[in-house]
């Protein structure tokens, strides 16, 4: 059966389940006697196992199966939770995530077997409670290996069947030999090697599950199965293989013509869909063949059905307006009401479509508790993460990109921001450090804040670093406000960390954060108080594709400035422009605002007539909490514009964020306020 159509669903649902597993595990760690949580974890593991099984992802299925064993023992109080166990369960989670990611990229689960994790899981059961082992693991062996007598474990393909038939016709015996190694066996590959020597010397092995290469690399559980053609009897093999040390069990099943016929029938019935049969088979024998069909899953958004209904209603209204317009056209008169109606509907449709693209930021946030937990352990600090506003919604494209910079900032706060327990005690602070992660909507923006109650940023030290690194002269730095100094943290290769830790301090952190946020059209700011903590605020526009913009003339060219970054528009006379430190500024309500002459910067060709104007039009834009005054020639008006990319050739052009098409079909460029503002 072709499973490809289910891949997207599988990946999406698996991710949801893994997320659930993640939060449940965190709860389990905090409260390790809660049966409800255990049941929840068990349920998720079980669901994942079923899903993986249906899709034919054997390794994933095996891993979840082992998890289930441990969880079941936990549920039945055969063993108790300890942090080591939670660690192993977390590693299972990571492994499952790896599988799901591989699946979403290639359509197959990959070759990683995570043997160490299954071993560790088995170790929990064995090490902690002997009784648990006898009751828990033996039914397990039964289950995984359970095949009714006479039925074969391995699946034979047409080629195998032909070979076996030839062997049987030549009067040879064909056996399926199932070997189970002792659970305590340390050198599994070595044991398996000896077994293979026995087999090779007395038979021809035509098939092995897992593949021989995998067995050599120890990529198998404690059992493997081979199909061998031989002249010897089954008793001979049972005796010979049992004579090898650390063998728990040997089962020899003769393969007869009946098996082959049954197999052939099955193969035939599947022949209608040869490719997927092939793929399935490849999966089953854990083949090393290159991926046949690299199926890449698409990006999907889960949409509330109500939102789709709204959209649907709007579209039907649109049709009504169209009909209305048609009839009024027949009458030969334009209908103002209809046009107005149309306008209202298009705006509503725009809104509705935007909402469809929105996803709660929870998707990004919910991986952080786990991360902070790991970081806290690594740094040996007590850290509590408080999250709020997880239901704040952002455009899907933003959601995909925002995670990485947030990780940087959070790690930064945990590593540099928060002090060690001892330091906190000295400062009369509670030993547990707090990190607050908040998201909320503010007008057309979404604000994400990461605040910690740690030591804050040592501004004096940053000042020293700026001078040391020769970025600015000492006297220059002394004129900087604290705010300006802190902004240097976002410059490339600027790190004040005294020691480089695994987490941060290599000076590749905050500038990456800043670049990333700016590509999303957002800004990032820091507030800090020495000894009290710091707060990083990220401000990103709600949606990227359609924005409100102010259209202006610069020379004879039209440009669009995103309305979200404009704070006001003022007219100033040329005399009001003063020079401070070689920078022209204007004074607005006691604020000194640097002036940016857009015509010059954008090299707009002179329209000729030297106009001696009495006043200059200044668009005051806001970048973070700093203002700049953009001088433009005249204003056109406010308009909703669709942002279009300039394409590959012109990507990365300075000062321009994109282009838009105006009502008359002409193109207006959208100014990149971040790069233009001083």
């Amino acid at each position: 059966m072709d499973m490809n159509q289910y891949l997207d669903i599988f990946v999406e649902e698996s991710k949801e389940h893994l997320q659930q597993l993640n939060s449940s595990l965190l709860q389990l760690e905090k409260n390790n006697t809660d049966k409800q949580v255990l049941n929840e974890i068990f349920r998720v593991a079980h669901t994942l196992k079923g899903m993986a099984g249906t899709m034919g992802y054997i390794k994933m299925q095996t891993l979840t199966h082992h998890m289930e064993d441990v969880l079941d023992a936990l549920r039945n109080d055969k063993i108790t939770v300890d942090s080591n166990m939670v660690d192993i369960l977390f590693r299972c989670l990571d492994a499952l995530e790896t599988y799901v990611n591989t699946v979403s990229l290639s359509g197959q689960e990959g070759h990683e077997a995570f043997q160490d994790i299954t071993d560790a899981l088995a170790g929990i059961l064995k090490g902690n409670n002997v009784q648990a082992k006898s009751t828990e693991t033996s039914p397990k062996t039964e289950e995984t290996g359970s095949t009714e007598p006479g039925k074969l474990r391995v699946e034979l393909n047409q080629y195998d069947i032909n070979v076996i038939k030839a062997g049987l016709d030549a009067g040879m015996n064909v056996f399926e030999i199932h070997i189970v190694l002792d659970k305590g066996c340390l050198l599994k590959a070595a044991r398996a090697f000896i077994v293979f020597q026995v087999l090779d010397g007395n038979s021809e092995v035509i098939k092995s599950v897992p593949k021989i290469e995998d067995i050599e690399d120890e990529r198998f559980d404690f059992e493997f199965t081979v199909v061998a053609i031989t002249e010897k009897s089954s008793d001979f093999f049972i005796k010979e293989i049992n004579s090898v040390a650390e063998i728990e069990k040997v089962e020899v099943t003769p393969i007869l013509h009946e098996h082959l016929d049954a197999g052939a029938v099955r193969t035939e019935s599947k022949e209608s869909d040869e490719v997927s049969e092939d793929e399935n088979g490849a999966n089953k024998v854990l083949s090393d063949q290159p991926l046949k069909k690299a199926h890449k899953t698409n990006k999907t958004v889960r949409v509330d059905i109500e939102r789709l209904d709204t959209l649907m209603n709007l579209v039907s209204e649109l049709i009504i307006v169209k009909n209305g317009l048609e009839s009024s056209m027949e009458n030969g008169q334009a209908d103002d009401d209809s046009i107005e109606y149309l306008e209202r509907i298009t705006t509503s449709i725009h809104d509705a479509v935007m909402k469809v693209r929105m996803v709660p930021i929870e998707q990004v946030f919910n991986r952080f508790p786990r991360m902070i937990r790991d970081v806290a352990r690594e740094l040996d600090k007590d850290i509590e993460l408080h999250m709020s506003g997880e239901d704040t919604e952002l455009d899907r494209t933003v959601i995909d990109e925002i995670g990485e910079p947030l990780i940087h900032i959070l790690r930064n706060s945990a590593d540099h921001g928060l002090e060690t327990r001892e330091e906190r005690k000295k400062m009369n602070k509670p030993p547990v450090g707090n990190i607050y992660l908040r998201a909320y909507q503010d007008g057309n923006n979404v604000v994400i804040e990461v605040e910690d109650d740690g030591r804050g940023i040592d501004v004096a030290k940053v000042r020293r670093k700026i001078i040391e690194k020769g970025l600015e002269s000492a006297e220059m730095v002394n004129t900087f406000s604290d705010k300006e100094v802190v902004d240097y943290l976002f410059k490339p290769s600027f790190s004040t960390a005294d020691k480089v830790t695994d987490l941060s301090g290599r000076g590749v952190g905050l500038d990456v954060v800043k670049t990333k946020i700016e590509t999303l059209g957002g800004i990032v700011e820091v507030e800090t108080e020495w000894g009290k903590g710091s707060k990083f605020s990220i401000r990103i526009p709600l949606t990227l594709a359609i924005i409100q913009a102010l259209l202006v003339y610069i020379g004879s060219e039209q440009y669009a400035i995103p309305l979200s970054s404009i704070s006001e528009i003022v007219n100033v006379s040329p005399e009001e422009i003063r020079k401070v430190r070689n920078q022209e500024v204007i004074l607005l309500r006691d604020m000194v605002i640097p002036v940016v002459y857009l015509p010059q910067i954008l090299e707009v060709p002179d329209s000729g007539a030297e106009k001696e104007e009495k006043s200059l039009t200044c668009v005051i834009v806001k970048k973070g909490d700093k203002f700049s005054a953009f001088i433009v020639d005249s204003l056109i008006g406010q308009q909703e514009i669709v942002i279009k990319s300039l394409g590959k050739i012109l990507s990365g052009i300075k000062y321009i964020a994109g282009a838009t098409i105006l009502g008359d079909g002409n193109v207006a460029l959208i100014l990149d306020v971040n790069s233009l503002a001083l």
Partner: protein
Amino acid sequence: MEKNHVDKNSKQYVIFRIGDQEFGADIHKVSIVEKMMNIARVPTTPPYIKGVINLRGEIIPVLSLRIKFGLPEIETDDDTRIIIFKFNEFALGVIVDAVYEVAVYNEEDIESVTSITNDRSYDYIVGIAKREGRLVTLINIKKLISDLLVKE
């Protein structure tokens, strides 16, 4: 001289003129030929990039081969055309003085230029072909603007 059928060894080329020289470009890369239209200048780009146009809702950069080849700019007239090239990753408009026709050239009609020059900067020239007694330079547009594509 004219051959109308295309066989395995022959390719179709769009023939256009810049100044008094004729050029040809592989027709498979040409999406459409448009009349001159409004071009929005893009600041901080090399002079031969004239700007961007709106081609039925798509923003497409346009460059002037005249300037690229170091010829003086001229007023656009009724013959001026923008040839829209489409590659896998991007589209591109090229302003030319006139577009003539589609010509079919056999491999043997095309003379390699490596015999004339080894200068790497002429890499964009695929070869020289003859058309009604005149020479047509066959060019590879993508190579011509490779310097634009290298930079990030």
